[in-house]
């Protein structure tokens, strides 16, 4: 196990190097020179030269790559081009709000979709099963934007059950008042794809021999489902939730933007709009590292839960 972990960690090096190269290629080579963008409507050559010097984009590519490499290794991505706030500070202050929304969202949606998936897998082939599957297909075909717009309009604007958007000071206020609608929308969006996926996990298990054996020896149906099938199907489900996490951290930007939640996703959108490259570079590298770490964690967890799994 330790040898395996070390080997996997060692394999991170080329992948991380690749991510750094890709990000560098995108932002320093393709993205090139944002000085004209930042210099305002009527740039004079002197201002532009000053900005270029300040951003470090007047250096040769090799030097720029070296600077970027040092930034990644030090975990210090400099300051935002538009607000001059330190990038590390931006992350430290935006992570909390993101997690306040994401953790309850993931917990609730996982529990709900697991329960629904187990139910439809149990009555597979029936009218209920087919109706739920079709409802999921239709639900999945509606854009997440529509969910946000309609939920926000009906529940917050028309009925006034929730604040339309905003963020408070205390954690309690944020979680129960300001995040509530965002969490509801997030759960509504993720239910359809999750139920479909988890249903296949449950179906894989229901057709296994051990289920037949359990039934043959007279075990009650609830016990077969809740103890035997659920525990086995939970393995791929938990892995799936874990693997979603890094993507969600940056990917919840639509929800964060609409509900005014000052999280990392909203910061990404703002940065893309303002061509604020240091922030996007930092997010990309951090999320890539998190993805790799979570992948490793998921594999180790698999091994811990299921001893038959062979790690190579």
């Amino acid at each position: 196990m330790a040898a395996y972990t070390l080997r996997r960690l060692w394999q991170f090096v080329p992948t991380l190097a690749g991510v750094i190269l890709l990000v560098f290629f995108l932002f320093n080579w393709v993205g090139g020179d944002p000085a004209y963008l930042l210099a305002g409507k009527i740039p004079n050559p002197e201002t532009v030269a000053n900005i270029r010097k300040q951003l470090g984009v007047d250096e040769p590519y090799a030097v720029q790559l070296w600077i970027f490499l040092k930034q990644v290794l030090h975990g210090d991505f400099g300051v935002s081009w538009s607000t001059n706030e330190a990038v590390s500070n931006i992350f430290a202050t935006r992570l909390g709000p993101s997690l306040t929304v994401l953790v309850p969202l993931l917990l609730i949606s996982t529990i709900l979709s697991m329960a629904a998936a187990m139910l439809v897998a149990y009555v597979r082939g029936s009218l209920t099963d087919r109706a739920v599957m079709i409802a999921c297909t239709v639900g999945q075909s509606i854009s997440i934007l529509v969910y946000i717009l309609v939920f926000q309009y009906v529940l917050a604007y028309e009925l006034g059950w929730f604040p339309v958007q905003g963020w408070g000071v205390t954690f309690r206020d944020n979680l129960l008042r300001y995040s509530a609608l965002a969490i509801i929308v997030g759960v509504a969006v993720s239910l359809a794809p999750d139920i479909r996926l988890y249903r296949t996990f449950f179906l894989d298990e229901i057709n296994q021999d051990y289920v037949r054996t359990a039934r043959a020896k007279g075990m009650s149906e609830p016990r077969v489902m809740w103890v035997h099938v659920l525990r086995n199907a939970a393995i791929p489900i938990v892995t799936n939730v874990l693997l979603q996490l890094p993507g969600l951290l940056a990917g919840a930007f639509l929800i964060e933007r609409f509900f005014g939640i000052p999280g990392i996703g909203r910061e990404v959108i703002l940065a893309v709009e303002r061509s604020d490259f240091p922030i996007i570079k930092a997010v990309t590298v951090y999320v890539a590292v998190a993805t790799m770490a979570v992948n490793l964690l998921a594999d180790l967890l698999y091994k811990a839960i299921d001893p038959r799994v062979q790690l190579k």
Partner: protein
Amino acid sequence: MSEQGVWALAWRRFRRDRLGYGSLIVVVLYVAVMIAGAAGWLARDWNLEKGVSFAPPSFLGPEGAESPQLAKAAEGAQPVADYGIADPLAPDLAAIAKNLVGAGAGQARAATLPFGGDKWGRDVLKKALKGTQTSLVVGFSAAALATFLGTLFGALAGFRGGKVDDFFNWLYGVFTSIPYLLLVLAIAAVVNQKGTFTVILILGLAGWTGIFRLVRAEYMKHKVREYVLAADAIGASPARRMFVHILPNVSHVVLVQLSLHVVLFIKSEVILTFLGFGVGVDTVSWGSMLAEAGSELLLGKWWQLTAATVAMAILVTAFSLFTDAMRDALDPRLK
């Protein structure tokens, strides 16, 4: 029976799947709308301001005088001449206005439109039809690009093995360690340029990884099969074995992936355009319609939101069901 090829057999299986067959018909209808839109037969005049601002759908009837200001503005009411002097620019302005408005000039604006109008009085139904064209063009083109890249890389990696395989696996690892939407946004940020072609390029370049993984696995499986070894024995070149011998045998995997990615890219385009990094302002897309619909909803004008949502939901549902049916028909063992 023995004369029938694998595709004819798949088609027969597909025909028996009523839900899948119905979905195919819907998809074909959408493609017809796309072609008609591209050829200029349909919704060519979507950009004309035919109705009054926020003209309600015809089945609701015209709006009462609840917003006289809006109605006045739409009619182009003249400001009151307060000072008793004639506006010296009036004739010039009138002439300019006449030239500008073009086809809409002279005739009164309609009080209602078939499915309502947007802020500028453009026909929402026509916008939705034209948006279908944009979405499908982006979806198909980006999926074609991603499938091309994924198949090419997958074929090379799976067939060649060794260093080539290591290289493409490394590339795959790099691309998949960055979440798809973040990668798309990052590329959009550096390209910093709107337009249909840009969107296709961004989505296609970011979305090849899933296809690569599957095609690579298929090639690894097929390259040691007897028919490929036989082709090698009679002197077929590696390129010939890869693309003439093996490719037709893995094409069902490629085709299903192509179809899945069309749906993925249509959804992504809507989000990109909504955020303002998508197709240009002179192009209508479901994403740009939804972007306008957000503020319209607050005024109680729900029709643009409904039109874009329904148009997209029907297409994506039909396309997903069609893809499922196609997969079952092409690979009956899966069912």
